[in-house]
């Protein structure tokens, strides 16, 4: 990857973090605790520091070696910021009500604890008291931004120590033509409009295992898929995850019982993150969203737990291991009112300004979008969109609209 590409990639990462910080600042935190705000100040400081590295890296007077180092540093500090942001998950008033935080705060006050505190809801087995100390990071990084210095000083004034455990950096998606094939390949053939025959082959220790199953839906494939996702446009952010879990469990129950039994067996044999490839004649149903509803399995949506992809057999019969390069197109819908997508608009503008993408009108119907993506119009721009969808391992062309 060239330095410029790496710089753009890191800039995008930082821009997304910045947008997320802005969103989190707009939330209400129970009891109006100052803790989350101070935490976000630190994150902003890290992001600003990373942006400073990138600005410096773009200076023509800086040698390539130094520029490369600066870009790597910006990516590392963006990872730090990402990790800190994760700690705020579950802290806003929608996730944890003041009725819980209030008594806790009084308890803390009663004990004479003067620390800055924030509370969060999480799926853990016990209370968790986490301590943070990021002083070494703040003090030792080169060219710390003023905002980072200010944020660190603000916490120091109150005698607080800030720290961060764990790591979970975001990673770019890479296309690896020589990558090993999937452990599980599921072929789905349509028998009429509402019935499907599944056939799968699994690479297990000592050989391969095969299985088959059939399902009959109450409605057509398309209507079933649309019924699952009908609520999405009006979904409130706070209910998104819960609703998606429900959709995933519906898909799990709709899958052949033989497949469900086999999946539980595979988890025992292959672990929890083996790759799965769906090859399906039906282009509508997002089977990779399936969420196994099995006690004790602790499974999330398939595409969370497994590298998962779905190949639409009816639309693109030839599976490829390379992707032709095309133009970069940006489709960002411009909704008004409560359906507005401010972060998407920021991201769309960034894609246009930083990557030279063409801003496209995002009013294409599903059919038109598929037409472009499948290149049936002979328009080479479809390659760009296809590349985008395939690079991101996002389901199928239909869902791009």
């Amino acid at each position, binding site marked *: 990857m060239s330095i410029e590409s790496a710089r753009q990639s890191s800039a995008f990462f930082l821009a997304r973090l910045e947008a997320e910080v802005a969103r989190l600042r707009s939330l209400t935190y129970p009891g109006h605790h100052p*803790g989350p705000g101070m935490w976000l100040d630190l994150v902003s400081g890290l992001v600003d520091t990373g942006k400073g590295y990138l600005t410096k890296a773009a200076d023509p007077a800086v040698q390539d070696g130094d520029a490369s180092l600066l870009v790597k540093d910006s990516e*590392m*500090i963006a*990872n*730090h910021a990402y*990790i800190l942001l994760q700690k705020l998950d*579950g*802290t806003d008033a929608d996730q*944890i*009500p003041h009725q819980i935080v209030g008594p*806790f705060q009084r308890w803390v006050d009663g004990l004479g*604890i003067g*620390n*800055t*505190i*924030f*509370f*969060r*809801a*999480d*799926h*853990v*087995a*016990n*209370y*968790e*008291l*986490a*301590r943070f*100390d990021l002083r*070494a*990071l*703040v*003090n*030792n*990084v*080169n*060219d710390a931004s003023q905002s980072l210095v200010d944020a660190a000083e603000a*916490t120091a004034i*109150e*005698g*607080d*120590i*800030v*720290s961060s*455990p*764990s*790591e*979970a*950096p*975001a*990673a770019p998606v*890479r296309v690896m033509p020589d990558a090993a094939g999937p452990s599980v390949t599921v072929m789905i053939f349509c028998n009429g409009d509402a019935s499907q025959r599944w056939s799968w082959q699994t690479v297990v220790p000592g050989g391969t295992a095969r299985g088959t199953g059939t399902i009959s839906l109450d409605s057509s494939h398309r209507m079933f898929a649309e019924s699952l996702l009908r609520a999405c446009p009006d979904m409130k952010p706070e209910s*998104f995850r819960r609703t998606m879990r429900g959709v995933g469990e519906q898909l799990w129950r709709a899958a052949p019982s033989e497949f469900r039994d086999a999946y539980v067996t595979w988890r025992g044999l292959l672990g929890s*993150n083996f790759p799965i490839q769906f090859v399906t004649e039906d282009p509508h149903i997002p089977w990779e969203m399936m969420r196994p509803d099995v006690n004790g399995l602790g499974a*999330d949506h398939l595409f*969370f737990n*497994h*590298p998962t992809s779905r190949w639409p057999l009816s639309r693109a019969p030839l599976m490829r291991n390379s992707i032709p390069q095309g133009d970069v197109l940006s489709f960002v819908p411009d909704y008004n009112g409560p359906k507005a997508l401010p972060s998407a608009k920021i991201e769309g503008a960034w894609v246009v300004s930083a990557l030279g993408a063409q801003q496209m009108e995002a009013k294409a119907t599903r059919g038109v979008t598929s037409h472009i993506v499948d290149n049936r119009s002979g328009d080479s721009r479809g390659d760009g969109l296809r590349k985008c969808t395939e690079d991101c*391992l996002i389901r199928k062309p239909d869902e791009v609209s």
Partner: protein
Amino acid sequence: MLDGGNRMVPLYVWPRGDVMRFEMEPSQDLGLRHVLRNGISVLQGIEPPHGRERVLHGLLEIVSDADRGADVLNAQNLTFALDNKPAFERFSLFVRYLSDAFTDLPARLAEAKTTLTRVEAGENVGAEDVRQVNELLTMLLEALERERSLTPLPTMRDYNF
């Protein structure tokens, strides 16, 4: 304690005065990387961008903690890791990356601490002593960079939506 959604409610506290280290993988720690990089520059006579004193202070803190960790572990203090987490983590850092490179790592850490203390105080330090500290820091930095380069990228499930 459970809220209405049956979720446990953990408490996040930023303590006052209680010194803890952040639990980040050393190879992902930019502050550590910068302090090592700048420290090597200082020992080579190159002035770092933000002042020699700050760099030496940060570096000495790391090496001193590690040296203390080595001392207490030699005394076979079983509760040391709990009582002195920063020192234990610092010593673990050097052991993890350099135990194969140096036969007597605790001795190297003690020497490095002495040398850095003298450098910070502005005393004249022998070229061989400086070279030895430089070697220690350079090998640690290289090990961190190597580990970061070889660490597999996280899978998509690591994203939080």
